[in-house]
Structures are given as structure tokens and as C-alpha cells.
């Protein structure tokens, strides 16, 4: 047998034929770059047709004026006028709120932060991502432990993420709806949160109160996203590294800081990156809890103009939103490029 089959493998390998085998062979012999692009092709085609092509179309829409009457979707070609109007505030009337805040020279350099979509969005983003990351971390640390019943705790912690936004909105809306929810009182008979001065008695009509509650609701739901990713990151760490660290004398905290943290950093960064992007596009929870009039986010502007329908303006705001997100993301990438993203 032995001599017969001597190097039989190599032979049988090349003997195998047919279109499948030749395709495999062809792929294996590609250079690394060619191979990379080949593997990316399906994703790029999908993204090209379903994302890039629509975006190109939408971008061209942003160069046309709005058209409210007649069968045409858009008005005449106006070039970048929509963009100019948006930044000069000349288009604010068509939006649920101002796009940019009015700037002043004194701290905090803007007047009435809650009346501009940009500020509302940024506030939401900063606080929700911050708390989600912290809480997600905490949750992941717990889920990483071995204890009885942890599978159920895990489900419990992750399950808010599985709630549709409409229902998430309903849950929190009802909690803070006067005369329905118990978390809200009346002027005469205030509830705990009212007494603490955290929220007024009609929080969902007040921008600041609503924003606060929406952040809480979002943190409730989305911490699970963070926890899930961070947990997965922790699970991928080679356990023997902890053995080494333990013997070297590392306390739990030191193990966390010197092993866990650096090794899950790429995962955490991806999670934070996408949470930031998502948070900057927040819409659903606002719509279902307080409404775009009360808490105007950038996406609110897009959707409400889209529904108006002011397609030119909507496309413009969408692209400007994307540009702002790109700006924020580039800050991330600039700061963390070294972490292997």
C-alpha cells in the first residue's frame, strides 16, 4: 500500500478535475491582492447595488430644489444651494428645528442647545455611547464569570436588545405618560423622579427631559449590544495568558487592565464605533417616545423632510448627516488607528 500510494496525494490532487476543482485551483493561485478582491466581490456587488447606487442617486437629488406640486419629484437643478441654505440656516423653516445652533462667543458658545438638531444629536450620542459602553462593560464582566444560572442572567441582560423599537418606545412612553405610568406624577402629587428634579411632570413634551429619558431608554436597550460584543471579545482571549499573569502576580484588576483591556480593545472600538454611528442616526426611539418636534435629531430632519416631501432638502440633510458622522468617525480612527482597526 505504502509504495503504491507514495506521494499519491499530490497526484490525486492534480488528477481531480472538473469545473469546481479548476475554479478552486484558479483561486488558490491568485496573488494575495487578487484573492482579496475576489473575496470582496460579492460584498462589494451587494453594497454597490443596494447602497452605493442609491446613495449616488440620492446625492444627485440633493442638487435639486424641492418640488411640492406637479408630478415631478424634484424642482430645478440648484447645485449646492441646498447645502448652502442648510448651513446658513436659510432652510431651517422647513425642518422640525434649526439644523445648527446659534453660536455665541461665550461658553458654552451656543444658545439654546436643545433647539438645534446637531446639538441634540451630539448630546444624545455622547451620553448614550458613554453610558452604554460603561454599562456594557460591566454586564460583559458579569456574563464572563462562571456561576450558577449564568445562562439565564445572560439572556436577561441581552434580551432588551431584542425588543423592537416601537415596543421599547411604548414601554417607556407609558411609564412616563401622566395618568398611566407610575414614574410620573402631577404637580400636586409628584413622583420620585419629579421630586428629585430630574424631570418635570410632562417630560415627554420638554426637550431636555425627553432627551434625558430617551438616553435612558436607549441605554437600557443598547447596553446589551455592547455587552454582547465585549463578551465575545473577552471569550476570545487565550485563557493561558491569564495563568501567566496570575503567576506573575497580577491582581484581578491588573489582569483586566493589562490583558483583557488591550486584547478586547479592537472589539470595543468596533462596538463603540458602530454605536456612535447608530446614535448619530437616532430616530425610532425619538419618534415613538417624544416625537421629532420635541427632540429633533438629525435623522428626524431627514425623515420629516422626506415625508413632507421635500426630497431635495431631505437628501441634503442625509448627506450632511453622513458627513458629520464621517467627521466624528475620523476622530475615532485618528485616535485609534494604531489599535489595529
Amino acid at each position: 500500500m505504502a509504495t503504491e500510494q507514495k506521494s499519491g496525494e499530490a497526484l490525486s490532487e492534480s488528477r481531480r478535475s472538473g469545473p469546481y476543482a479548476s475554479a478552486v485551483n484558479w483561486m488558490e493561485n491568485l496573488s494575495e491582492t487578487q484573492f482579496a478582491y475576489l473575496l470582496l466581490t460579492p460584498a462589494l456587488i451587494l453594497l454597490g447595488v443596494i447602497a452605493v447606487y442609491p446613495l449616488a442617486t440620492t446625492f444627485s437629488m440633493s442638487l435639486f430644489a424641492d418640488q411640492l406640486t406637479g408630478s415631478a419629484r424634484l424642482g430645478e437643478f440648484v447645485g449646492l444651494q441646498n447645502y448652502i441654505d442648510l448651513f446658513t440656516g436659510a432652510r431651517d423653516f422647513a425642518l422640525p428645528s434649526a439644523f445648527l445652533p446659534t453660536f455665541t462667543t461665550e461658553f458654552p458658545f451656543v444658545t439654546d442647545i436643545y433647539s438645534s438638531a446637531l446639538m441634540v444629536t451630539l448630546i444624545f450620542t455622547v451620553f448614550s455611547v458613554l453610558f452604554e459602553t460603561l454599562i456594557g462593560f460591566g454586564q460583559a464582566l458579569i456574563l464572563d464569570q462562571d456561576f450558577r444560572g449564568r445562562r439565564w442572567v445572560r439572556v436577561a441582560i441581552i434580551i432588551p436588545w431584542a425588543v423592537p423599537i416601537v415596543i421599547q418606545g411604548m414601554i417607556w412612553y407609558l411609564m412616563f405618560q401622566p395618568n398611566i405610568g407610575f414614574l410620573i406624577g402631577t404637580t400636586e402629587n409628584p413622583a420620585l423622579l419629579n421630586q428629585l428634579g430630574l424631570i418635570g411632570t410632562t417630560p415627554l413634551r420638554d426637550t431636555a427631559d425627553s432627551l434625558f429619558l430617551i438616553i435612558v431608554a436607549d441605554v437600557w436597550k443598547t447596553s446589551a449590544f455592547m455587552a454582547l460584543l465585549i463578551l465575545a471579545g473577552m471569550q476570545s482571549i487565550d485563557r493561558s495568558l491569564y495563568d501567566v499573569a496570575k503567576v506573575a502576580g497580577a491582581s484581578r484588576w491588573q489582569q483586566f487592565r493589562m490583558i483583557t483591556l488591550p486584547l478586547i480593545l479592537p472589539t470595543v472600538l468596533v462596538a463603540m464605533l458602530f454605536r456612535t454611528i447608530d446614535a448619530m442616526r437616532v430616530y425610532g426611539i425619538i419618534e415613538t417616545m417624544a416625537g421629532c418636534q420635541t427632540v429633533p435629531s438629525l435623522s428626524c430632519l431627514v425623515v420629516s423632510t422626506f415625508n413632507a416631501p421635500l426630497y431635495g432638502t431631505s437628501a441634503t440633510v442625509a448627506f450632511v448627516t453622513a458627513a458629520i458622522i464621517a467627521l466624528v468617525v475620523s476622530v475615532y480612527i485618528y485616535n485609534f488607528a494604531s489599535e489595529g482597526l
Partner: protein
Amino acid sequence: MGDVKLEHVSKHYDDVTAVDDMNLDIQDGEFICLVGPSGCGKSTTMEMIAGLTIPSEGKVFIGDREVTNLPPKDRGVAMVFQNIALFPHMDVYDNISFGLRLRNYDKEEIERRVNRAADVVQLEGMLERMPDEMSGGQRQRVAIARAIVRNPGVFLMDEPLANLDAKLRVHMRTELQRLHKELDTTIIYVTHDQAEAMTMSDRIAVIDSGQLQQIDPPLVCYNEPANLFVAGFIGSPSMNFLDGDVTESGFESTNIDIEFDPADLGIEVGREVTLGIRPEDVYLVEDEHLVTNPSHEIEAITDVLEPMGDEIFVYLKLEEDAEAHLDEDTIAMNDQLLMSVAPDTVIEEDTDVSVVLDRSRVHLFDTETGEAISHGIESAVKAGGPTGTEAESDD
């Protein structure tokens, strides 16, 4: 501070018993080698001392404290792991300085020590490399350096030199011995390299199937193995074993008889015993003058020759028609004998030769229990008086 004691320690995994009722008493400052076949429980023992594995039964002491359940960080041990386990996200410098940084040493001290350790393991100039940019041996050296920058009470080293070349290994051995002397710490060392075990250790602990077989100074293990297992395990190539019986006139087997008075050695006649003789204690008849107390001549045919440079291994067939069995299913091979001769000896394959055994280096073991009965027959004979001389004169 650095004495380590295991008291009736066992470790069971589901259906596997990795360590079985182990008792070890290691003095402060001792250099102990753990040796034993693959899977015998050496690493598990180390892990229990380090605190990475909690014994299923028994107690572990370091210094005066019982540490059985103490976390590793409080045990004052440093360890070189068998699987190396470098931190992939740290460069060599950070890997080596890890333990020091944990303890907030100041920067210069860290740098001094890291450079010193890198020097010892000959990794100067590679401190900025990442682990995945290094060769296997280089990684192992980083792991060693990571352990030796610290000054723990106990060093645990699990095959630290396995991936190093012979020269570097000799160098590292010297360095470890120097370190041992300098710091006067306890070192517990796993190795598969007999030379390492022989030259470095104060005592060798031989383990088999989770059980301690013998713990003694190297030469005692070599010259007076406690049982068949130790005899066969220590020494490379392995000791020759021949199964036989004790008769009135001594040891008798298919091919070889050795005369002595059983009463002298305190063995009852009829007991089944195994005779052990190391390859270097088998001599060609022409070299008989080198042996003070040779056995009678044994006829054999040379089979395979293995020139090793500094010696030649000669496989001898004792029964002409017997097939040489190369697989070592039974520990004793009555039809075969391995001999080592000087490299300049003129010898050819498939020729008849006569050999003698050095009687003073013959070992006898109880075949059933494996326990050693006697080491060296000559001395027994000499001490025994007339019967001994009789036996000798019989020759």
C-alpha cells in the same frame, strides 16, 4: 521561605488521574528536576504549586504557609510555562517586564533588570520585537527572561529549554545554575533532557502515572534506581533488562546467567527477577581489562550499529534466530543487548562478538513489583565471603 511541600496531593480530571497521592518535600534553595514520561503529571504538579490548578485532594505548602487555596499572585512563584504563552499584544520588553510593572518597580530598575535578563537569554537587540515576529526558540527565551527578571521564592520551569539548540542550552543551563546560586531560590524544573537533569539538579524526582517513583540525587537515581521504572527511564539509551529466575547459583535467564549466592543478597531462590545492565557497562571481551569484576563471556552477534560521534551504540542479538524487536512493548528483551563502545572501536555489523558485563554494575529487580533488590553484585559477593568468591571462581 522557599521550601515547597506537597502532602498527599492528587488531581483528578473527570476520569483521568493526573497526579496521584504525591508527597514531595523540597528544601529551600534546592534545585529539583521533575522527570517522567509524557503525560505523567509533571505540569499538573507544577500548576498546583503555582496555584493555577487546585488539587482535588491534599495540601500544598510554600514556606510555612499552607497555600492550597491561595491565589497564585500571593504565592511568590515565577513560572516558565510549557506552552510559553507570551502576551501577543506586548513586545518583548513589555513581556519581560510584565511582572515588574505589576509591582510598580521604578523605570530604571525595570530597564536594568530587563536588559540583564535579555542578556542572559541572548535576546539583546530584540526587545522591540513582537512575539509573532520571533522564532520558536526566541519565544521560549522570552518566556525564560520573563520569569527570571523577578526574585520569587520559587521558580517553576516547565521544559524551559525544549526548543533551544544544544549550545544555547548548555549556556542557559550554566546561567540558571548561576542564578540559582546567586538568588538561592528553590527551582523546580521539568525537563526531558537527561543531561540537564543530571547536571543541574540537587535531586531528581521521577514520576510515573502521577506517582512519585523516586526522589534522590542524580547519581543515586542513575546508579541505584529504586525500581524498574526509574532504572529504565533514567539513562539514555535505556538500561538493558533481562527477565530470569533466581536459582541456587544466582541469576538464570535464556541467554545470560550471573552467578552469586542468593542468600547473600537476601533473595529467596525461585523468585522471578529482572536483571538490568546499562549499555556502557557491557564490554567487548578485548576490553575486559577495563572491568575489575567482569561476568563470564556472553556470545552474541552484532546487529545494528549506531555511531553517535562520541560513542557507538551496538545492538547485539543474543539468540541467533530471534527477530530483533524494535518495539518496546515489554520492558525486558531477553534476546537483545545494547552496548556502547568507544568511537574508534573496530566493529562491524553481523559479526560474532563476545561481551562481558561489569558485575559491579548489574542491577536486580523484582519482576513483579519492580522494586530494586540489589545494585552491583560484586559488592554483594565480596561482602558475602566464601560463596561470593566461589561464584567468582566458577567463572
